[in-house]
Each structure stands twice: as C-alpha cells, then as structure tokens.
C-alpha cells in the first residue's frame, strides 16, 4: 500500500510504502497465545502422568509456529519512506523506526523499473545515483510498483500534480 503526503516540513513529497497485512501484531500474538494455551492444556495431564516426551515435540512445534508467524509479521510490518526534498531524496527502511537510511542527490537520481531477467520473479524498482542503487517497494504488488515508478519519475521531473 502506498500513502503519499505532500508539503511536510522536510519533504515536498513523501511516499510511505507498506505491504498489505490483515492482522495486527497484537492480534497475531493473541492467536499464538491461544494456540499455545490449547496445546499446552491438552498435553499438561499427559506430562503430569509421566509421558513427558510429548512436551519437547509440542515446544518445538509451537516455536516453529511462533517463528513462522514472526517472520510473516516482520515482512508485513516492513515500512519504507521515500522523502523527496528540494535537493535530495531520503529513503528510510525499518519496522518500528528507520533501520536503514540513504540520502541521494535529487539532481542525479534515476528511477529504474527493471523486469527480472528470470521470469520466475517480479520486477524491481531501483533509485540510482552515482553508481549506487537502492531498491524500494519490494513488498508492493506489481501494479503498485509500476504506479510508484511512474509517480516518482514525474515527481523527480517536477511534474507531480496534487490531487
């Protein structure tokens, strides 16, 4: 999902990119807690009666469930902010706060939408400058990535019209 903010203090145009997610962290945690509770309540009498080998399998499995959900949640909560200022483009990436940050001179920036040479994978959107490239919007769906490429191109050319 792409949200656009116009004319903030630092940025002329600010693109906030997020993947689609249908459940929040908290709801995922509640789900996992419920699953753990059901599983552990189910096996507790068995463990109490001495059939303890059930416990490590349950623990391992719940760890795997937790790891799987954590990985998906992390991917779903990834956020990228592309701030286009008068003379620079600042790209920040992170979940709760900026984890990575790049600043590119606006005058030298190029937007490249590259179709993957392997047909298996989706296209890649890159912002190039001085031989360096930063990929943005990896988690976007194809249509959104194309739209973002167009918007950024127009924006860098100074052709963006506010709605």
């Amino acid at each position, binding site marked *: *999902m792409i949200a656009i903010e116009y004319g903030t203090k630092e940025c002329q145009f600010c693109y906030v990119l997020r993947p*689609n*997610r*249908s*459940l929040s962290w908290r*709801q*995922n945690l509640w*789900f996992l807690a419920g*699953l753990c509770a*059901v*599983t552990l309540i*189910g*096996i507790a009498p*068995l463990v109490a*009666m*001495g*059939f303890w*080998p*059930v*416990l*490590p*399998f*349950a623990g*391992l*499995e*719940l760890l*795997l*469930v937790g790891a*799987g*959900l954590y990985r*998906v*949640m992390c991917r*779903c909560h990834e956020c990228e902010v592309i701030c286009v200022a008068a003379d620079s483009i600042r790209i920040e990436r992170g979940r709760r706060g900026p984890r990575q940050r790049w600043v590119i001179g*606006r*005058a*030298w*920036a*190029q*937007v*490249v*939408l*590259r*179709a*993957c*040479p392997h*047909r*298996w*994978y*989706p*296209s890649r959107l890159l912002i190039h400058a001085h031989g360096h490239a930063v990929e943005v919007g990896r988690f976007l*769906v*194809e*249509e*959104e990535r194309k739209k973002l*490429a*167009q918007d*950024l*191109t127009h924006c*860098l*050319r100074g052709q963006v019209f506010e709605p």
Partner: protein
Amino acid sequence: MSTASHAHDHAEDHGHDHGPPRGLTRWIYTTNHKDIGTLYLLFSLLMFFVGGSMALVIRAELFQPGLQIVNPDFFNQMTTMHALVMIFGAVMPAFVGLANWLVPMMIGAPDMALPRMNNWSFWIMPFAFTLLLSTLFLPGGGPAGGWTLYPPLVLQTGDAFPFVILAVHMMGASSIMGAINIIATILNLRAPGMTLMKMPMFVWTWLITAYLLIAVMPVLAGSVTMLLTDKFFGTSFFNAGGGGDPVMFQHIFWFFGHPEVYIMILPAFGIISMIIPTFARKPLFGYASMVYATASIAFLSFIVWAHHMFTVGMPLAGELFFMYATMLIAVPTGVKVFNWISTMWRGAMTFETPMLFAIAFVVLFTIGGFSGLMLAMAPADFQYQDTYFVVAHFHYVLVPGAVFSIMAAAYYWLPKWTGHMYDEKLGQWHFWLSTIGVNVLFFPQHFLGLAGMPRRIPDYALQFTEFNMMSTVGAFMFGFSQLLFAYNVIKTIRGGAKATDKVWEGADGLEWTLSSPPAYHTFTTAPEIR
C-alpha cells in the same frame, strides 16, 4: 537531471504473467502455491491408487472364506499400510493440495505466506512414503499391528519398526509445516476488506483444521517416540512389566486420533459448502452458523477420544461423559446438514458432476454419521466394538465423505486450474459407478458387523460369505471406476473445451474473477472485496 527507464521484457508486456521455468527443476525448487498444490494433488492421487490396490488385496482375500491369496501376516500388513497410506498419503495431502491452490486465490493473496516452507512440506512426503512402503520388503515385512500402532502388538514388528516411526514423524512434520503456512496465510495475507466473516467456508474450515493439526500433532509425535524408546531403549511407558500402562497409549493415541478424524472431514465440509450454493444458485444458508458449527465440532473433537475404547474398562462416569460428549457432536453436524439441505431447498438446481458428488456426500456422510451415533452409545458399542460395523461406519465417513468431497472439488475447480472443461459424460459415469460401487462395498459390512464378524481377520466363518462376496464385488467396481477419474483428469489437463473464467454460472468467490487457467502469479494486484 532525472530520468526514468523501464526495462520491460516480453513477459511483462503481457500483463505480468511470468510463466514458470520449464523442466524438472521447476517442480523441485518451486515456491509457487499453484505448483505445490498440483504436486500435492498428483501425489495424493498416486497414493490413492497405492492404498486402493492394498484395499483390493484385502477384499480379494475376503471374497470367500479360507485363505486363498495372501498369508495372514501379509493380510495384516495390508490393512495397516492401507490405512496409513490412505490417511496420511491420500486424504490429508489432497486437502493440503486444495488449500495450496485455493486459499491464496480465495482470500486474494499473491501466494502462501511462507513459500519455502511450503516447498519443504511437500517434498518431505515422497521420502516419508518411500520409507514407509519400503518396509514391505524388509525382513519381517511391514507393520502389521494396525494403523493405531497399539502396543504391545506393534512392538512385535520386525526390522520395519524404526522406519515406520521415522516415516510417521516425517508425515507429521510435513503436516505441521503445511498447517503453519495455512494459518499464517489466512491470518496475515487476506486482501483489504476480506474480514474473517467474509471468508469462504473452505478457508474457514481449513483455518480451524490447521489449528487442530497444530494442537494434536505433538501428541502423535510423542506417543510414537515413546513406542520407539520402549522398544529400543528399555523404557516402560507402555510396558506393564516395567510399571507402564499399554491402555494409556490408547488414550494418548486417540487424543490425537479423534481430532485427526475431523482434520480429514472439516475441509470436506468446506468444499461441499462451496459447491452446493453454486449449483443451487443460492447463497449458502446460515453462513455464520456454519462457521460456529465448524468451530464447535473442532472443540468437541478434543473431549470425545475415549469413545474409541469404551471396552478397555473405564469407570462408568467416564463412559457416560464420553458417550454424551460424542452424541453432542451430532448437533453442530446436524446444523451443517440442515444448512446444506436448506441451501438446496427451492434452488434452481442442476446436476453436474461436482454437484452429484456433493449431494452423494450429504446423503452418505449422514449415513456414516448415524452409524457413528449408534457406536457412541456405550452399551451398544460393547457389541459393535472391533466388528465390521465399525469398518462400515468409518468408511462411510471417509470414502463417500472425505474422498467424494475431494472428487467433487477436483471436478469443480479442474476447469479453473487447467483452463479446460472436463468430460461431463465421463464424470457422470464415474459418479454413478463410484456411488453404486461404494454402497455395494460398504453397506453389507454393517450387516456383517451386526452379525458379529470381527475386523482385521483374513478368514471368517461361513455364514458371513454372501455379504463378503457382495462387498468384494463393490470394492472392485469402486476401485476400477477410479481409473475413469484418473483418465478424465489427465484428459482435461491435456486439452478439451475451453473453460470460461467463471466456469459455473452460479459460482461466487475471488478465484472465479481470475482467468482460466489463472496466471502463474495471481493477485499481484490486491482485489476489491465487496
């Protein structure tokens, strides 16, 4: 200076339909949900024929009294392997395959949430079943103590024993990974606007099934590991001589085993809830009650396990509890049957092959449900326990129940998957031969059981001959009619009349908004949910 360049390739110019790579590596390395769904479904079809062949060996031996074809030990290996192959190799993978194909398309997700794990969870299966089936060639043969692996009998298995346990662990690991993927996908990747109570019933039933799978699989893993340590490491979990309790294995096994039964039937409920509204041209009657009924069945499945073992010598209070709890399951199940019938009531029904299988499911599954109610009554169960009545009951639930629903699903979604219509006439022949065959096969087994014929015997008393002959004729009729199904599926994959995108006039759901066949990557644009 700012410029933009768009490096398009040929595929991108054609609506981003990145086709799949070709060759064997496509299938080995694939992380695409459609490819993995196809692999699961083909694997399950193969296992259906392997397990079916074992069933035909059993039925051929039972055609007449006396020992004609196989020796008793091999007969017992066949009954054990038939069950393991059909449950873990045919029915469960078929449902996982359907989930892989359909869940992302139904909820508007581009793929499963954990695609690499999805690849692993499939590719464990062929190795697990190669291991399991290879035990038939080991000294002492394969496992012969029944799929429930009751000790101390199962501990008499020859060299095959550790291989069987490892194979069961691998199947369990595969199921768990599949379940985690389905849960993560359904919870996190629903399209904007797709709230839980807007999800198709198939998605709902799979969410609950995956929850059940995760809750009970460690119990299976733990119990078979304890068998292993009892056999090889001198522990006495189930060895009465060392202070253990073999009956506790039955409790532990069925604490897994009964939810497992629902793991095999809840997705079938979801499929039928998708098909009947399409061909009745009416929305599903009582959607919310269907969801709550599914959840209730799942909950009750945890507290009824001991109805499988009424005769082990339980306290009366325990028998009463498990009897009434089991009977209670009839209530949400009845809600479902009522809702399916109400959906059909005054609908503009047509009877294409998927609908025929769905109607047969409703009727024949209900027969299996009623015989289940008879078995739920503890005093009556003392008579029925370990007779052919039990065999008839669970086969009515699993064959015209789970298997028919899978066939209905295959006919229903095959045009969407392949882009070709299946041969309707062949489908109808398949349906009628299967339905007549399955009833000739299993209905007489009720009478055999009521007359006292025990299950898992290769020879029997003369008075059981006629019903056994009927049953065997039905088995071969049902078995060979499945070749029509395989032929129809292959024929449809290879070509046929072009299917439209919607395929069925009354169909409703996101998957029908896609092309037939759908592009390799679908919903790269999130759909809009009304």
